[in-house]
């Protein structure tokens, strides 16, 4: 628009620049602190010129917190959650959009309600379920008297037990059990023209064929967006991995960060802590930068 607002334009640039600085500064501080040695990092004020110990600190942080395997764990968890979400949500959305069966609306609401309660607030009982993932089914058999019946008839005592603590499955599955992706797909499926479905039916394709040949390829953008969002979300999970990975071998990079907090009374090794922080925040940052388009799209679409 042809409008002369020199003061407002100056003001706009100024504010945006300040915002930019506040947004980037913490990243810069982390990177700079990670390059100092113990003395320099504790200088007041800390020098904003990078020091020379960057790679040494990175290496120290890497070995202290054992970040190699932890990053791999994080990656497996994030990729598993992203893939699981992308697949399972697509299946479910296909079911509730493209079929009419009794109870469909009920299923829709069952899934919809899961949007309301995040994992964090039902963390204690979810932990108990993961400790023995078959306990709900055992309880059902017990309460309905079926286990008593089975024991009478076959003489076998029914006792299901499958612990998922310290396993990738236990890490991943509860994080998939929400409706976010389902609704993203649902919104998209509803915009797919009916004629396409009809054309496929005229061409002789059944439900499964249509799903695989037509619907999934058309959903590529949504899959990329959902995958990106879910990968980041899972990578950044903290409370859940902290709880269920009591054994170090399955801990994730984000939970390991705690090991790097300088102890009270110990040497304030902030340079190592910041080097570790940098390593942990780098993968999601790279994903955000590279997948920006999908990230933004996914963010907006999942919340619709």
């Amino acid at each position, binding site marked *: 628009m042809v409008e002369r607002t020199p003061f407002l334009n100056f003001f706009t640039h100024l504010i945006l620049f300040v915002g930019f600085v506040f947004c980037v500064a913490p990243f810069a501080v982390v990177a700079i602190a990670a390059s100092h040695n113990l003395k320099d990092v504790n200088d007041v004020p800390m020098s904003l010129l990078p020091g020379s110990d960057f790679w040494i600190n990175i290496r120290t942080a890497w070995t202290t917190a054992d970040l190699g395997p932890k990053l791999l764990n994080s990656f497996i968890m994030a990729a598993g959650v992203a893939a699981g979400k992308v697949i399972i949500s697509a*299946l479910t959305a296909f079911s509730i959009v493209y*079929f009419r069966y009794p109870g469909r609306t009920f299923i829709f609401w069952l899934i919809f309600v899961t949007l309301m309660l995040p994992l964090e607030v039902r963390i204690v009982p979810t932990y108990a379920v993961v400790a023995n993932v078959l306990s709900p089914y055992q309880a059902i058999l017990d309460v309905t008297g079926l286990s008593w019946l089975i024991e009478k008839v076959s003489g076998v005592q029914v006792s299901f037990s499958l612990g998922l603590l310290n396993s990738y499955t236990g890490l991943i599955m509860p994080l998939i059990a929400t409706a976010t992706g389902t609704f993203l797909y649902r919104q998209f499926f509803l915009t797919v023209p009916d004629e396409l479905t009809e054309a496929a039916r005229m061409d002789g394709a059944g439900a499964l064929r249509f799903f695989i040949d037509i619907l999934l390829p058309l959903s590529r953008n949504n899959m990329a967006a959902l995958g990106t969002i879910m990968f980041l979300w899972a990578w950044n999970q903290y409370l859940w991995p902290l709880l269920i990975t009591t054994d170090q071998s399955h801990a994730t990079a984000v939970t390991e960060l705690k090991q790097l907090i300088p102890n009270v009374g110990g040497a304030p090794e902030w340079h190592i802590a910041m080097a570790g922080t940098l390593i942990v*925040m780098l993968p999601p940052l790279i994903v955000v930068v590279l997948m920006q388009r999908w990230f933004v799209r996914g963010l907006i679409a999942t919340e619709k």
Partner: protein
Amino acid sequence: MEKRVTFSRSTIGILFAVPQLLLIFTFFYWPAGQAVYWSLTLQQPWGGGNIWVGLDNFRSILANADYWNSITASLVFAGISTGLAMFIALVLAALTDRQLAGSRLYRVVLIWPYGIAAPALAMAFRFILAPEAGFMAVVNQVWPGFWDPGLDGADAMASIIVAFSWKYVGYNFIFFLAAFQAIPRSLIEAAAMDGSGVIRRFRDIQFPLITPTIFFLLVINITESFQDSFGIVDIMTAGGPANATNLMVYKIYSDGFKGLDYSGAAAQSIILMLLIIVLTIFQFRFIERRVHYR
């Protein structure tokens, strides 16, 4: 909205939904139901009997000053960080929407913080705001003892608020910018033809049109401040000093897993669930008012 065209084989249809249903039953409904059950019983950790105690767990929680302290802290945290993150994001988005030179850069960079894990950014801020090193130490040199989140509850609260807001400015920015860009250009131009200036247009046209987004973000920010705060609190303050930052989720975690008081933790979970459900219902009251031009 419904599809006109569907497939007739409904048994296949249900099969497609089975994996999801099994997952949400096992990891959502069962635990949620379990939480209700535990909250009404006195449960021995992992096995042992549980005694029906009715609403006693709730009564004892609600009579506990620590719990009320936790609720107050959560509400203070939610209120200030939401207000801060939304206000800053709104200003930045409105200015970016003016599409002056460089606005593309801001659009890219301002989103970065949201990608970062809460514990990682908490670590960064723990250093930046540390009283003896980092940047607040400079202030402490001038006014000794001015800033110490390790000793002063208000300082600790301020620290976690800064860290959380920093992350959520980027998130809110995305939604505000999308909302601004969804306003048809012709509307702004019509207002300009009617003789209203930039500020006036923002007040009369743009701001009213994005109110649905404001409501929406308000609810999301508050809910997230309950959940996503856990990592920040755990890394930066561990609930201290003197429970000043012992937010609700953190308290559930420490009571349940450190204090092994499952019944109390379950009752707290139920209260938090109810709080979030109320918020969500509140959001749905406004969801119809949300306008998507995209």
